[in-house]
């Protein structure tokens, strides 16, 4: 039964991804002009004369003068065979540039998600059980503080404090010697030493929303009759709380992966920009500003696929967790 549910969901994601790729490609075309106008602007800025024929020659060569659909088709047919096209700015195949950064982005997003859960779960339960108590207010305020403080501000202040008071280099994901080193255990440890800063920054804002959801769901479940039955069976308050209401409040909590993922990914763009992390964010931002179409398109497509996968995972987890969905 579960299998058919998963297969149905997977089949559904294919047209979904197609639509996403179309939208992402259109978004990149949205700003006026194209890569070559930006290229000309950078040249002009450094004083060089850029004449029209040179731009025209490059435009035809990159195929930028073709209609939107043709460009899109050329790009998407390439993508299906794993060739994401050429980055104009770097004169390199896009695939060389994106994979490691995407991996780090996913790693950052996952660790932030785990961090957010680790915070939101206990605090959500506590504030539901102790509704309207002082503890509930304090905990909720802390949660909202995380939400209210803009990430980029927190990142900059953390970096400044790191440099001035601790002399530590807070930016980046690796210390100097590991930056280009091949992946080894030591490199992973070094990564963990550095990753906690962006994780904390990103985690604080997303945990506030999760705390609210956990609290609301738990409040609904707490006064359900099966809780009274369990109490009548002689279960202790704590065991009872964990086994029944929390277990049921978990369902909506798990389904939040679906929407938490896209926010984590896009939220990380700004924080990564400030902390100069080697993740997808900064390069995507640069590609979007330079209208480096194929590079930006590849990133947006991958990020969307990631979020779609995230939603699929959350649906499957939900089906596993809640038999009612399995047998529907």
């Amino acid at each position, binding site marked *: 039964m579960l299998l058919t549910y998963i297969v149905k969901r997977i089949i559904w994601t294919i047209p979904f991804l197609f639509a996403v790729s179309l939208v992402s490609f259109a978004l990149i075309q949205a700003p006026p002009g194209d890569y070559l106008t930006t290229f000309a602007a950078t040249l002009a800025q450094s004083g060089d004369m850029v004449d029209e024929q040179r731009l025209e020659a490059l435009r035809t060569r990159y195929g930028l003068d073709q209609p939107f659909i043709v460009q899109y088709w050329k790009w998407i047919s390439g993508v299906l065979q794993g060739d994401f096209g050429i980055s104009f700015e770097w004169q390199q195949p896009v695939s060389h540039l994106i994979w490691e950064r995407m991996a780090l982005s996913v790693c950052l997003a996952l660790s932030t998600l785990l961090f957010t859960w680790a915070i939101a779960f206990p605090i959500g339960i506590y504030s539901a059980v102790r509704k309207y108590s002082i503890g509930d207010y304090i905990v909720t305020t802390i949660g909202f503080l995380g939400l209210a403080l803009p990430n980029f501000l927190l990142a900059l202040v953390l970096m400044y404090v790191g440099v001035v008071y601790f002399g530590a280099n807070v930016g980046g994901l690796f210390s100097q010697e590991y930056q280009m080193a091949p992946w080894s255990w030591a490199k992973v440890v070094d990564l963990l030493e550095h990753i906690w800063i962006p994780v904390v920054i990103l985690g604080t804002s997303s945990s506030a929303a999760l705390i609210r959801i956990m609290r609301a769901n738990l409040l609904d479940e707490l006064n*359900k*009759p*099966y809780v*009274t039955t*369990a109490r*009548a069976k*002689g279960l202790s308050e704590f065991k009872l709380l964990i086994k029944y209401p929390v277990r049921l409040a978990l369902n909506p909590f798990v389904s939040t992966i679906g929407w938490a993922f896209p926010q984590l990914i896009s939220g990380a763009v700004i924080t990564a920009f400030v902390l100069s992390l080697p993740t997808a964010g900064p390069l995507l931002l640069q590609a979007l500003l330079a209208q480096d179409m194929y590079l930006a398109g590849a990133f947006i497509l991958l990020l969307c696929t990631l979020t779609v996968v995230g939603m699929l995972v959350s649906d499957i987890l939900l089906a596993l967790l809640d038999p009612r969905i399995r047998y529907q």
Partner: protein
Amino acid sequence: MATVTPLRPKPLAQRAEAPVVLEVEGLVTAFPTRHGLFKAVDDVSFALEAGRTLCVVGESGSGKSVTARSILQIVDTPGRIVEGRILLHRHRTSRGKGSDDTVDLASLEPRSNAIRAIRGRDIAMIFQEPMSSLSPVHTIGNQIGEVIRLHEHVSKKAARARSIELLRQVEIPTPETAVDRYTFEFSGGMRQRAMIAMSLACNPSVLIADEPTTALDVTTQAEILGLIKRLQDDHGMAVMFITHDMGVVAEIADAIVVMRHGKLVERGSVEKIFFEPQHDYTKMLLQAVLDLDRPSERRLERRAVQPLGPPVVEIRNLTKHFDLRHGLFKRKGHVLKALDDVDLALRMGENLGIVGESGSGKTTLGRCLLRVHDPSGGAMLYHGANGVTADVATAKGAELAAVRRDIRMIFQDPFASLNPRMNVAQIVGEPLLVSGIASGADLRKRVGELLDLVGLPANAMERYPHAFSGGQRQRIGIARAIALEPRVIVADEATSALDVSLRTQVLDLLLDLQERLGLSFIFISHDISVIRYFCDRVAVMYRGQVVEVGETEDVCNDPQHGYTKALLSAVPHPDPRHRGMLGRHRYQAGA
């Protein structure tokens, strides 16, 4: 076809003096509210004897449920026990193994280990809503096994075996597979059986049942009551049975406690209460139940004086199928036949009763008549006052609107049928306002008249539904229904949500309106006693088909169809002398 399995009815006379297991003395449970302490239970005392059933009876809001929960100290926050003692005498339990002492449960801390050791082991409890009282995401076996392993150090495997044995005890078919199934895969009756199995896990000496059968059909109710009776005889446990249905009390009670507004009104053996009631509230309760079990004199007088008119509504081979779609790929096979070729006719001034259990299609019939659902086939002819006949099944637009002005509906749940955000004037006035008959001052005047007609004070107009009791809300529903001077009223379980005492008042109100406005009723209910009181003719429905129709008295006294026999025999009679229910027979659907 109909098989009769007689059960051992316990003759009244020879009940020996049984040992007292639980004594409640001067119990007071209160809820702090904005306006001071509200005593839900006020100075209640009674005793539970091993092997005996004490029925606590009272209308909604009488505090009977809070009393039961106070015993196990699981009263919902912020309620707590303020005074009184609850003495549990453990040595006299049949197992004898327990320590020989008396524990005052009231003195124990609600969250202490002591009280928890008792919950589920010495005193077990079952609840009214089986669907939401069991966890939807844990298997039955898991929930039952949990109680066993909580109180006795037993391995998981042994606990599972015990659970299967318990499921067999409560007659759940193929217990080996049932143990791994989830609650939503069970029917109402099955779920209640599972609940009972769970409560018996540790062989408690006291079982508290908080209206366990109220939500069940009358046939299932009979089985569950029989099961509890048999388990009580086997285990010798004391049962505290909470209900508002005097018929059930008469069937199973040994002793009775009557409660009203948190106070203990009367206490005594079943014979004393039923035949020599002291307190006039008890008398009123009994009278209300007894009145219902026979046709209302007023109706009979009127019938004698005023003959029935020509048929006003004729239903011809009405069918209604709901296709149970499974997501994208709609496979034709899965179709639920709610109504299967129904033929009925309602005559002017007549009260036609429709009786059947849940799932019999009686509600769908009522809703199809008003085109809340579109029928899949057949015709519903309505003969209008102006002689024009309309087929409601296919009517559209203005024609349907005209029919809907003549045929009106009264709903079952008084809470859900009134928009909480509109005051009474707006609710009752809505049909008049919408059909443009009246507005402004004229509208207020007519609403005033209607409220007066249904016995509600004029100042009710400005008040909101949440300010009224169940009975008063039903009257508002009725006022709305008769606002457009209809000719036919479809009442869908109009009284089943009310307390017994209110039912007769509402039914009398309807009869009164029938005389004044020349109405005819289609009265849908699962409660035979209400049908006997109110309806001239009755149709019995089973799985979408009308199995029997005829004059109410003929059908009740001399049922022809097997199902009708089974249905009638399962109805508890509010007279302890002939406890027929236990000697009933069961109907296996031959077809």
